């Protein structure tokens, strides 16, 4: 689950919304396909775009360690959004693309946004082999099987090129790739690749640092992902020292909707029930006039997991057109680990 989709939906919404009002996502989308439970997700076909759906994204977050011994995080995201159900070629294409990229250290959080229209080859997704691109940013697989890949983005103050090597299977989130977002049936198709090892270089303000670490790729497509009363969400992707991976989210509404998947080191997936998951904000950071919970206590009762997550840089604010918080976190408590946290709608 990834909030940038929602940021995108908001940005492109014909309805007047303000940045904090994420409720519009509950609006029905006529003319677009709806995610269906049991619809198979196939590889490599589903790496490509799904134009029948209103929106989707390709994204990768990486927890990195530099040669300087410091921790870093990198984010790469490409959003696709259909402005309307009818479509055409050239400038008649009704697809909008938006790229977000960021590099985070304990002291810096630098980000960039870029936008493109579909139809003229300024942005798009080729497959197979998979290659998502916008301007000079790209996220590409070396082969159809995606055994390895490369990621590149740059902004005014930063840039990175990261090589990815896959060491595990693609993972279907939710119920075999059908991920519910609310009690009323809002859902998306959702798969991840949490087994990337990363090797590359990040540059911040002209200083180039060699980095290695772990990456997590998320793919999701849908046409309507939030219930009308939902205002935003908190989403976690965690690499635990045991080799397990964990994806958890909650959508904040009249009643919180919680969900998650436990991913074993071999890629076996177990869906977690909402009541099994406990989220407890511990500390808040004040950013741009909002209070964001940057330290959390998170429990998965069935797994005896009781952890505290702390942000590498509590000021990991994505001040893009529709702003949100996204940054690397460290895990302590019943187990240790690292991961990424995303928060929207604050």
């Amino acid at each position, binding site marked *: 689950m990834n909030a940038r989709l929602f940021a995108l939906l908001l*940005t*492109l*919404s*014909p309805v007047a919304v303000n940045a904090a009002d994420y409720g519009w996502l509950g609006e029905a989308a006529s003319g677009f396909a709806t995610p269906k439970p049991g619809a198979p997700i196939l590889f490599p076909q589903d790496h490509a775009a799904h134009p029948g759906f209103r929106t989707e994204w390709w994204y990768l977050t990486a927890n990195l360690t530099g040669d300087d011994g410091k921790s870093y995080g990198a984010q790469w995201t490409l959003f696709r959004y259909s*402005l*309307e159900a009818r479509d055409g070629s*050239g*400038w*008649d294409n*009704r697809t*909008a693309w938006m790229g977000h990229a960021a590099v985070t250290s304990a002291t810096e959080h630098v980000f960039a946004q*870029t*936008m*493109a*229209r579909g139809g*003229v*080859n*300024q942005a798009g997704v080729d497959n197979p082999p998979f290659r998502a*691109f916008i*301007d*000079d940013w790209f996220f590409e697989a070396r082969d159809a099987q995606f055994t390895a890949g490369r990621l590149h983005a*740059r902004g*005014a103050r930063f840039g990175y090129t990261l090589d990815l090597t896959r060491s595990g299977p693609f993972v279907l989130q939710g119920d075999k790739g059908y991920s519910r977002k609310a009690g009323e049936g809002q859902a998306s198709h959702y798969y991840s690749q949490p087994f990337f090892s990363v090797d590359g270089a990040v540059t911040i303000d002209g200083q180039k640092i060699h980095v290695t670490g772990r990456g997590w790729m998320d793919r999701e497509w849908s046409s309507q992902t939030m219930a009308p009363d939902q205002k935003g969400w908190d989403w976690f992707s965690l690499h635990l020292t045991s080799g397990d991976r964990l994806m958890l989210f909650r959508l904040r509404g009249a009643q919180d909707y919680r969900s998650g998947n436990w991913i074993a080191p071999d890629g076996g997936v177990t869906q977690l029930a909402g009541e099994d998951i406990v989220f407890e904000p511990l500390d808040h950071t004040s950013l741009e006039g909002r209070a964001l919970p940057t330290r959390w206590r998170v429990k998965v009762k069935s797994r005896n997991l009781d952890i505290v997550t702390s942000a590498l840089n509590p000021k990991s604010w994505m001040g893009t*057109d529709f702003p949100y918080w996204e940054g690397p976190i460290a895990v302590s408590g019943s187990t240790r680990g690292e991961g990424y946290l995303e928060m929207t709608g604050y």
Partner: protein
Amino acid sequence: MRQICWTLAALASHWRKHPANLATLILGLAIATALWSGVQALNTQARRSYDSAANAFTGGKAQNLVAAQGGLFAQDLFVALRRAGLKVSPILEGSARIGKKTAKLIGIEPLTLPRDVGLAPLAGNRSATGMLTGDGLSYAAPGTIRDLGVLAGERPLTDAGFKLPPLVALSEAPPGAIIVDIGVAQKALNRPGRLSRMIVAPDMRIDATTLTEATDRALRIVEPEEDSDLARLTDSFHLNLTAFGLLAFLVGFFIVHASFGLAFEQRLPVLRTLRALGVSARALVAAMVIELSAFTLLAGGAGVIGGYLIAAALLPDVSASLEGLYGAQISGALTLDARWIISALAMAGGGALFAGASGLLKTFNLPVLSVARPIAWREAHRRYLARQATFALLSLMVAVLAGYFADTLEGGFTVIAASLLGVALLLPLALEALLRIGEALSKTPLSRWFFADGRQEIAGLSLALMALLLALATNIGVGGMVEGFRHTFIGWLDQRLVAEIYYEAATPHDAREIEDWARKDKEIVAILPVWRSKTRIGDWPVEVMGMTPHTTYSEHFPLNAATPDVWRMLHEEDAALVSEQLARRLKLSPGDSFDLPTTGDSWRLRVAGIFPDYGNPKGQIRLDHTRLAQHFADASGIHYSLRVAGDATTRVMTRLQETFGARIARIVDQAEVKKISTEIFERTFTVTTALNTLTLVVSAIALFASLLTLSNLRLAHVAPVWAIGVTRDRLATLEMLRILVFAAGAALIAIPLGLFMTWALVDIVNVVAFGWRLPMHIFPQHWLTVFATAQVAALVAGLVPVRRLARAAPAELLKVFANER
């Protein structure tokens, strides 16, 4: 406070008794303010439009990329640059006819459009949604929507039959432009896959090397400051307008001064009485200042409204000429701001205060105890004339000095203003002298009285006559310049536009094919490529154009000065023809050498000749065609003229259009070019002529006002003559005759003064302002018209006061003796 109130009431009684005096005062002030603020409104409007146009694509800081050879370029270059990481946004500009109006159609891409250029409100997702869903949206400034005669929400239909998306008002849109999505623009303009420019995100700077690598010299960078040329190039145009505005204000100011002067003289007894009653000089002056402020607000307010009306009436001509001369689009809907209103009121207040200053000063220094006696006008007037003569001489000295030393536009206008003022101030002296001569030559008592009394009347009329003189002289001066310009310009156009057809190919490739085709056409006598490039000499934009060796040029191209073998030199040596403007700027004569910046280098050239280039705000250089192509790698290969046999023009044009369609971007014949050029010039001077006429009308009003105010006073002078036995009719005739003589005197002096003004305009102002010198033409017929106009103005102005005299009841006249003052 109470005292001031009573004083005010006492002062106001004068205006009740003399409503004509009040009317002239208010009218004068209102007219002066109206003319001045009208011109200011035009200038402000134009400047705002330049800013809006320049900011639309640059925001004052963003680079733009355009085709190196001019014209359009492929959209693939946009994608290539984006994919290379350069943040550029595509633009396609073109013009579309909607009904009877032409609009500039601008295609933008909202998602990539930078957020800090003038079109920023259209950048981003919200507008993308509006522009790209359903029927989409078009944006235009509210004034543009009005000008186009459509309503917001309507879908304008272009002449090409394309229905634009529904219009939405957007105040930030540049004047005269309709903004649509790039895809819509490409369809509406029938330019699929083509762009006219790209905007570079302001936080990114592209250097020439990067651009060359990325696009293989197809594009060229336009730095943001280059676009501001428009403001600089049009400066002289606006200074001209301002100068005329100021002149008009001056004439209006004369009226105000005259009215105030009269009011003060007439109120002198009241003032003395008030002082004698114990009103302090301070309180009296305070009351008069309050009175003055009230007039300022009243008349200034009326003036502001009048100024708005004048500006609104002249705006279409001003914008047409600015567009024609400089390609500057001016918003057709006048916008007003508080600053403009305040500055107009300040001008009115300043003018009123200045006009009333002498009265206020005299009031403040009024000796309380001196007996209220009738004004010994003779003494007073003699002193007054002496002072005026001193001022006149000073003014003329300033004019001579400015003419000798100044070579700036301000200097030129100083020469004109100072000489006008000097001669105007001398006018009463000159008339006085004329009347003295008349008096000396007179045989009969009545004619002696006619002249003697005339001398006295001048005292009251001098300001109005000065205003008339100024207006007449300006009329002759400016009229002469404009007529001369028209004469020269039309003759020059005939020489310059010899080729029958002018066209611009869509691309250099198309141009080659058209050239090949034209070579085979039997009715085409010569194909003359007029390739062009741009450079800058110093900070001045210069057009560089090619010429092939052909009799079209050697036999017809007008030259001001040239070396003896100019054409051989041009084609066989490193030589150039230089436009008069540029030659003047660089102080070049035939035979001199200069350095011309070329693509990445500099080229030393000799001046083979200098040619007039009227109306071009930029410098221009003509080079041999082959040499141009060698030194300017970026020379556009798309501009051509054709020589056609006999009457084949229409047939050849039709064949060209049928064969090449959209591959010919523009094509016009000679008659069309001439028509367009002449129209531009006519409209340019419509404004000048209008202001000129207004000034003349104002001066006639001044004369009328003065005569009306005087007519009461005149009774006292005429009554004794009537008592001796001269009939009222005879007196009225003499009175009218005197007015006509005065006007004739003013007109006679106005002729040489006007000629001098023409000379100063042609020889100083035009040269500095536009960089060219016109041959001076003289139009005696025009002088006769002006003389007649002056007589008619005087006749009309004098009619009412003279009729009043003719019909004055004997009792009125007798009262003069009873109410001994």
